[in-house]
């Protein structure tokens, strides 16, 4: 066998290798699996697992956050705190229904107070556990068979039993006959769903409901996927005004590199809930991050929306050992619901 014959036979042998169109996905999976295995970083695993995200971050310069492009301070190790979603809180939240994700939320006392008006929370910052999913037991008045969109429930650990701080839900009212699909289902403090339109000024208005796709949940029952979309926030940073139509939606820290953080966040799809941008609020020793969407309410009626998951990279440049905090989900939803489990 001469050299050319060897080349030919090696080529024929290598021709047996099949194509792998999903090669990039395989590599990512490998990286994620090894990260988890090595315990080097929680990363996107935190989105899938039931834990989450509050991190102390040491940052470098006093400046507003900006999207991409800056050089920052020397990175420091970022421990992930997930103790807020304790076993007890998580279990209490699962009593409300099927939880897709838990988010550990840490907010400053001032922000927490605006959410927990009827529940005493102590400490600064305050830790919550946020559950997102199909939490049917939050209210008993929704007719059976009505498909759910996303629900949110925020729970805090107190001295006694876990306290439900607030909750919200989007429920598409189709295919119920005779119901205006543009109506909003509002969860009142009593936990009752009101399949009626609400005014734009109503402080209890949650995200819009009534899906344009009448069958099933907006994500068709699939779990939230952090790779669903990768789009930058276009209008950022923004200031939240105190209106009921502006919604802070869940986010998770996916990765951190130096002063740059990669964040996975929910945002309106742009029809009835419009992505606005993010808000970074610097305080003494902390920085709070919120992702804002705005519910479009016309003639006193809301409409349907879905909240896809986006991903973006932000640069935080203030130094001084700030702790990165997660603002609770919606200032507009700061209504206490009774805990049906209690």
């Amino acid at each position, binding site marked *: 066998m001469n050299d050319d014959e*060897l080349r030919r036979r*090696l080529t024929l042998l*290598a*021709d047996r290798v099949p194509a792998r169109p999903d*090669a*990039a996905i395989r590599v990512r999976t490998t990286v994620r699996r090894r990260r988890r295995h090595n315990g080097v970083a929680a990363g996107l695993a935190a989105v899938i697992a039931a834990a989450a995200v509050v991190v102390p971050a040491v940052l470098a310069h006093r400046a507003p956050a900006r999207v991409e492009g800056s050089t920052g301070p020397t990175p420091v190790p970022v421990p992930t705190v997930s103790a807020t979603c304790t076993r007890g809180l998580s279990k209490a939240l699962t009593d409300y229904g099927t939880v897709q994700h838990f988010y550990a939320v840490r907010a400053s006392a001032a922000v927490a107070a605006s959410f927990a008006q009827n529940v005493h929370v102590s400490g600064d910052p305050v830790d919550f556990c946020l559950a997102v999913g199909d939490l049917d037991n939050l209210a008993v008045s929704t007719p059976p068979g009505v498909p759910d969109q996303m629900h949110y429930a925020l729970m805090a650990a107190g001295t006694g039993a876990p306290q439900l701080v607030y909750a919200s839900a989007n429920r598409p009212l189709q295919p119920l006959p005779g119901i205006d699909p543009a109506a909003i289902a509002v969860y009142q403090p009593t936990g009752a769903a009101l399949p009626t339109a609400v005014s734009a000024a109503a402080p209890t208005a949650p995200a819009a409901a009534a899906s344009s796709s009448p069958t099933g949940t907006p994500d068709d029952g699939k779990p939230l996927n952090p790779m669903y979309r990768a789009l930058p926030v276009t209008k950022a940073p923004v200031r939240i005004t105190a209106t009921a139509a502006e919604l802070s939606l869940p986010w998770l820290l996916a990765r951190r590199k130096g002063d740059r953080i990669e964040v996975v966040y929910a945002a309106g799809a742009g029809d009835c809930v419009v992505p606005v941008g993010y808000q970074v609020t610097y305080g003494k020793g902390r920085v709070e991050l919120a992702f804002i969407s705005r519910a479009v309410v016309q003639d006193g009626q809301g409409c349907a929306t879905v909240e896809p998951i986006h*991903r973006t990279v932000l640069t935080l440049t203030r130094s001084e050992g700030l702790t990165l905090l997660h603002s609770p989900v919606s200032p507009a939803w700061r209504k206490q619901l009774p805990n049906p489990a209690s």
Partner: protein
Amino acid sequence: METIVDAAEEAEFDAFVRARWPALARTAYLLCAGDLGHAEDLVQTALARTMRAWSRLTDRGDLDGYVYRVMVRTHASQRRRRWRGEIPTEHLPEPPAAAGAATDAVEDADLLTRALARLTRRQRAAVVLRFSEDRPEQEVADLLGCSVGTVKTHTSRGLARLRELLVTDTERSLG
């Protein structure tokens, strides 16, 4: 940890993987002596390490070289891992029966993979990179992290062993 952070880098990496996976997999397949599962693991390992280093790989023109270096050296460093299951045997469990072009091709591939599996990892890497990849000796030396002289030695001994094994196996399979 250095890693890909932004969407642009991620898209760039994805495009690189899509473009280079086939060639990497072919080489890995030969390096692993026809063990497809091991070969794909090897490529994934090399690309995963590349992904983690992506942000600091400023010389995008040498990405290929970087991945090949990682892959070849990872393969070479795995010599103590016995789970890979490359267990040379003296005889085929069942000699191929029917004749014909397709069978011949399969048989030929089997003979070649069995022969490759009996080379040392360094010999196999040298032969594959020289004769399947057509890489010059200096480049093979760079990939393997050794001198050109060592590459020549590995190639020469590997070729000699390969020819010997192929002749022996062919004669045995013919009966």
